[in-house]
């Protein structure tokens, strides 16, 4: 889960990384109370869960006299389709130099990877392409709580020495907050010292419980329903609903729909050992997607009992056509139940998908 900017800044502030003076407001009327603390130059930042919010008009500059009016303007906006419910009002810094600092999980070495460049501020992807040598990379060991000084020196290079403790503090944040990403971009120097002008933290979904973070995502009704039943669920835009077991097989089913010229409506992984009630809920959930004309069920595996799956499909009693591929234990009984009720059961995933694409054409 990606923390919003103000949440991420609160976290790094706890670890002693300086952030600009800032206040979270929910209406423009809350702003005047903070104006003295913010000073003359102010930046207003919409707290919305989208990337590229600056370019989309979600960050506005103001001064003491125009701040309230500018905040009103920002609250009326939609940023990439999302309403602005919260604004972070911050002191604007007199920036001398911008740096980029990022810590991620490196899949290849299976260890934390720290990136630092003195060419911050600009799009880091552009730097990575045009001047890859400017980005310093250090792989750390997760078994040590602090980065050894030599690693800090290697990363910081000619940057001011105040940067080194900040790198280590962000490393602590990364380790202790179960972060998949902890990033400060830009990390800036000013006459008053070093500040994190922006901060991005993504917390591992599997650690939200022990970290005590409340989930800040706005879920749709169907996403909430899927979460309730423990289904992995992603909505797409097509006419063919998909229910599979296992992430790989379900993804592969979606790809096959594209291969045969159709378009999938969703990804739903019902999980292992699916019982009739789970299957029923899955079928009903997918059938409730307005664009769905036909549903492909593709279940395979040792633990999955085909008769249970068949009962679930029948119990769902939906109006759309359901085309089924089942392989596992009690396969014959599952087929008997389904064909008795007039459902189509085909032996391979190619056949069910081909059939479903035909139905939608």
């Amino acid at each position, binding site marked *: 889960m990606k923390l919003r900017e103000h949440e991420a800044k609160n976290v790094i502030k706890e670890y002693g990384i300086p952030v600009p003076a800032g206040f979270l407001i929910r209406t423009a009327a809350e702003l005047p109370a903070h104006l003295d603390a913010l000073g003359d130059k102010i930046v207003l930042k919409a707290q919305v869960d989208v990337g590229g919010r600056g370019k989309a008009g979600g960050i506005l500059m103001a001064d003491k006299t125009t701040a309230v009016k500018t905040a009103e303007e920002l609250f009326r906006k939609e940023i990439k389709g999302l309403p602005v419910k919260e604004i972070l009002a911050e002191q604007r810094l007199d920036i001398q130099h911008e740096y980029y600092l990022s810590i991620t999980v490196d899949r290849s070495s299976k260890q934390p990877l720290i990136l630092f460049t003195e060419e911050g501020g600009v799009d880091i992807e552009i730097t990575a392409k045009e001047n890859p040598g400017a980005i310093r990379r250090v792989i750390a060991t997760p078994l040590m709580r602090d980065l050894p000084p030599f690693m800090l020196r290697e990363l910081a290079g000619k940057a001011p020495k105040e940067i080194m403790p900040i790198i280590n503090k962000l490393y602590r944040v990364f380790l202790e907050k179960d972060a998949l990403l902890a990033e400060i971009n830009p990390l800036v120097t000013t006459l008053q010292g070093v500040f994190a002008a922006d901060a991005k933290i993504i917390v591992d979904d599997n650690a939200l419980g022990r970290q005590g973070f409340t989930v800040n995502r706005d879920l749709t009704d169907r996403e909430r329903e899927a979460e309730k039943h423990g289904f992995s669920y992603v909505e*797409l835009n097509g006419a063919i609903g998909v229910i599979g077991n296992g992430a790989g097989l379900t993804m592969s089913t979606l*790809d096959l729909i594209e291969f045969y010229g159709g378009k999938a409506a969703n*990804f739903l992984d019902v999980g292992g050992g699916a019982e009739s009630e789970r299957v029923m809920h899955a079928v009903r959930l997918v059938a409730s997607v307005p664009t769905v004309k036909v549903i492909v069920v593709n279940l395979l595996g040792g633990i999955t009992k085909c008769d249970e799956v068949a009962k679930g499909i029948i119990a769902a009693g939906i109006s759309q056509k359901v085309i089924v591929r089942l392989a596992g234990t009690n396969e014959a009984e599952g087929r008997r139940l389904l064909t008795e009720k007039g459902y189509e059961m085909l032996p391979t995933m190619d056949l069910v998908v081909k059939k479903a694409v035909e139905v939608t054409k």
Partner: protein
Amino acid sequence: MIYGDKKTGILVQGATGKQGEFHIGLMNAYAREVGGRGVVAGVTPGKGGQQVHGVPVYNTVREAMSEHDIGASVIFVPAGAAADAIMEEAHAGIETIVCITEHIPVHDTMKAVAYARMQGSSVIGPNCPGLLSPGEVKMGIMPSGLFSRGNVGVISRSGTLTYEVVDELTRAGIGQSTVVGIGGDPVIGQTFVDVLKQFENDPQTKAVVLIGEVGGNLEEEGAKCTDLPIVAYIAGISAPPDKRMGHAGAIVEGGEGDARSKIARLKKNGVPVASRPSEIPDMVRKLFCGC
């Protein structure tokens, strides 16, 4: 054979849980079928002295090791205890550690995998179905009925998709040497690179099917570091960016790890890539006849 064979004694952690008990039964049924040793000991703290399907249960891995010759383990404990289980086994000197458990926080996995590497153990998983060498040994939860013995190694980040491909191979008369499910998490112990190195030293394996998915670039890294002939398949061509597709590690992030660019890089390195699972057997056959 890689990671273990008929003679490998297996330990199961979380032996008295529902999953552990169920799969000890299946693993030992397979061991009887092929004349292997199978699961020889179980561990559940506080349940020492019990038996599961006739397998003795101990309180600690060290206790189990002092009574039995153990070369591998399979972990079924809950997510909060799984990293500890990996480290306990690495500490006791078990060479191959298969972790089935899903939903382990990534930082726990990073620490456990780093510690296991220090101790010289190989971790397979987490969030994986384990491995199966047909006719030799099953460590994990793969449905053995679909497998047949042969010369093709299979490496996959997925569970059921692996069974789909193995089923296709078996139906086409192409047997497997060892099938390894390396797991669907962002950090896993044995990656494509590590397993391919094992296959390189395995005289039985003549070709490899590599089943990848969106997220990261370890499929391409793996394919680059081996001389073995490979057929690849990458799931997730239709996956939208920034959405987790079921597996914690199956995500296109910051424009990286998408299926199309993975496929393009594999093809650039001369690796044939199947556009759907049912194409794989024919492509494997072509590797063998060199046409």
